[in-house]
């Protein structure tokens, strides 16, 4: 991506808004100890501080902008710390799937014989597997943890990247600059790494932006079913799950993480759309 591409993304209203929301979420996650009350699992006098509605101050003089849950824990603090888990898991899972996808896709395009055909067939096969069924199985079978969720999401999300990279590498390989490099005597694997792959990564960026939103949503889904990040560590998914039991007394417990989740996923989609338009000259808006 060139600097001009980035400028186009930022000038696109969708790109600017999506990027701003994502940036805000990342900053909140990184600065969680600074912007919140500190310990996300802190409980004081549970009976006196539980189910406080948003914008109240409890008996200890602590202000709760988003209220407290049934253990008297501050919802805003848990939301900020939960952002670390949710964004981190989503980001790392997409990173893993991009890595696998690039390797498989590039390998399939490089060795065109039976190896490439086998890799492509395997990709198509994996693409046809019902992802949530696999997630349920993998997530339920081992001890749930953030690491497991990252691995499971990464292992079930690489196929579309592999196909994108494969197609892109194949079309780039026919371009004059690749022929020129080969004619100059550059070894083929170096041509692949230094000349083709960097150019092939552009559509991967778009798919990664869209994939992060999806991964965050699936992480929350697994945590919601109790198969992901385990309480008391906050993640947006298990916060929604715990808020489910207190929907009548304290609707804000389930509402706040859901709103945050939707905002981040929408931001990823908007950014992905803007990136796509910026990188594809035929879709560029006048």
């Amino acid at each position, binding site marked *: 991506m060139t600097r001009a591409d980035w400028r186009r993304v930022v000038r696109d209203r969708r790109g600017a808004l999506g990027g701003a929301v994502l940036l805000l979420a990342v900053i909140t996650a990184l600065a969680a100890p600074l912007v919140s009350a500190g310990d996300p699992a802190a409980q004081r006098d549970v009976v006196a501080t539980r189910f406080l509605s948003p914008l109240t101050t409890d008996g200890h003089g602590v202000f709760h902008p988003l209220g407290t849950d049934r253990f008297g824990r501050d919802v805003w603090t848990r939301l900020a710390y939960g952002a670390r888990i949710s964004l981190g898991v989503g980001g790392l899972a997409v990173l893993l799937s991009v890595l696998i996808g690039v390797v498989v896709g590039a390998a399939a395009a490089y060795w065109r014989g039976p190896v490439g055909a086998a890799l492509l067939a395997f990709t198509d096969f994996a693409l046809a597997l019902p*992802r949530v*069924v696999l997630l349920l199985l993998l997530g339920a079978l081992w001890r749930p943890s953030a690491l497991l969720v990252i691995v499971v999401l990464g292992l079930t999300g690489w196929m579309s990247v592999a196909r994108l990279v494969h197609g892109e590498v194949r079309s780039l390989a026919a371009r004059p600059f690749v022929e020129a490099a080969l004619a100059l005597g550059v070894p083929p694997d170096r041509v692949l790494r230094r000349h083709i792959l960097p150019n092939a990564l552009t559509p991967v960026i778009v798919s990664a932006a869209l994939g992060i*939103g999806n991964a965050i949503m699936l992480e929350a889904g697994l945590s919601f079913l109790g198969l992901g990040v385990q309480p008391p560590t906050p993640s947006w998914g298990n916060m929604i799950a715990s808020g489910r039991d207190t*929907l009548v007394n304290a609707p804000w417990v389930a509402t706040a993480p859901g709103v945050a*989740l939707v905002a981040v*996923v*929408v931001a990823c989609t908007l950014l992905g759309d803007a990136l796509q338009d910026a990188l594809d000259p035929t879709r560029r808006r006048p």
Partner: protein
Amino acid sequence: MLAALARRAVTGLAVVAGVVTLTFFLLQLAPGDPVERLLGPAATPEQVLAQRRALGLDRPLMVQYVAWLGQFARGDWGRSIATGRPVLGLLAEAVPATVELVGLSLVASYLVGILVGAIQATARPRLDTALSVTTVTLFALPGYWLGLMLVMVFTYWARWLPAFGAAGLDADLLTGWARLVDRLRHLALPLTTLALIGVGGAARFVRGAMRDVRAQPFVTAAQAKGLAPPRVLLRHVLRNSLIPIVTLLGLSLPALFSGAVFVEAVFAWPGVGRKLVEAVGARDYPVVMAATTISAMLVVAGNLVADLAVAWLDPRIRHGEGDR
């Protein structure tokens, strides 16, 4: 066309076989044992061993796998380890509930989605943007959370609709009209949840497809011929946009099914997804195997039906010219 279809059917069978094999060995790989969960911590090692032998779980893995395949093919799906009930009966209750929920939400979300997408493709930029914001947001809503929010509003606040199950406690005593109303009231929230999310995806896609088609030269030609704009839109643009849309319809079945897993969990909807979640937790091997196989078959069948529909819609593909 027939050859291509046969090829797709073979691929589909391979996918189902792959899912089955993968599930079988993953289940065995994982820690946790159905017998230990069944008998509880107080069971002696001898009791566990005896129960394992009775269930045939002490045999070598390959033998169990081949035996399972043979029995499954003959229609003997075994008994649930956790409840002792025949798996076939268990799933025969669950499949119609899931098909009802997923099928209806598919129809609803595509009808509304095509309408919204078509409006967007022809609307002024302002309305288009407003609708885009709406559809992006709908698309980003996690089903389980949207479900909870709907429950909060329509069950707890407004007290209009029930939040759990597919029928009321007194459903067996109701007859005719009252029973139908009870059923529809229970269906309303889970269906709305799934359909709203589906509308987001469908509308976004339809808008894109219609815009792509509208830029084609044949549309300009139709306009230049002086055809009325609604006719160009319906007969030329929409019809050609339907081809990718129908493909997407088949491809969105897995997504809808996975959405249904979460939505069924929220609304205690007695479908395959909920059975699967329960069975995985209990390491109920026969139920997990059968439920996974059925969902894989549903997904593969959905894709095949979509291929057939595309061929029916598009003469180029029907006559084998459209092979890309």
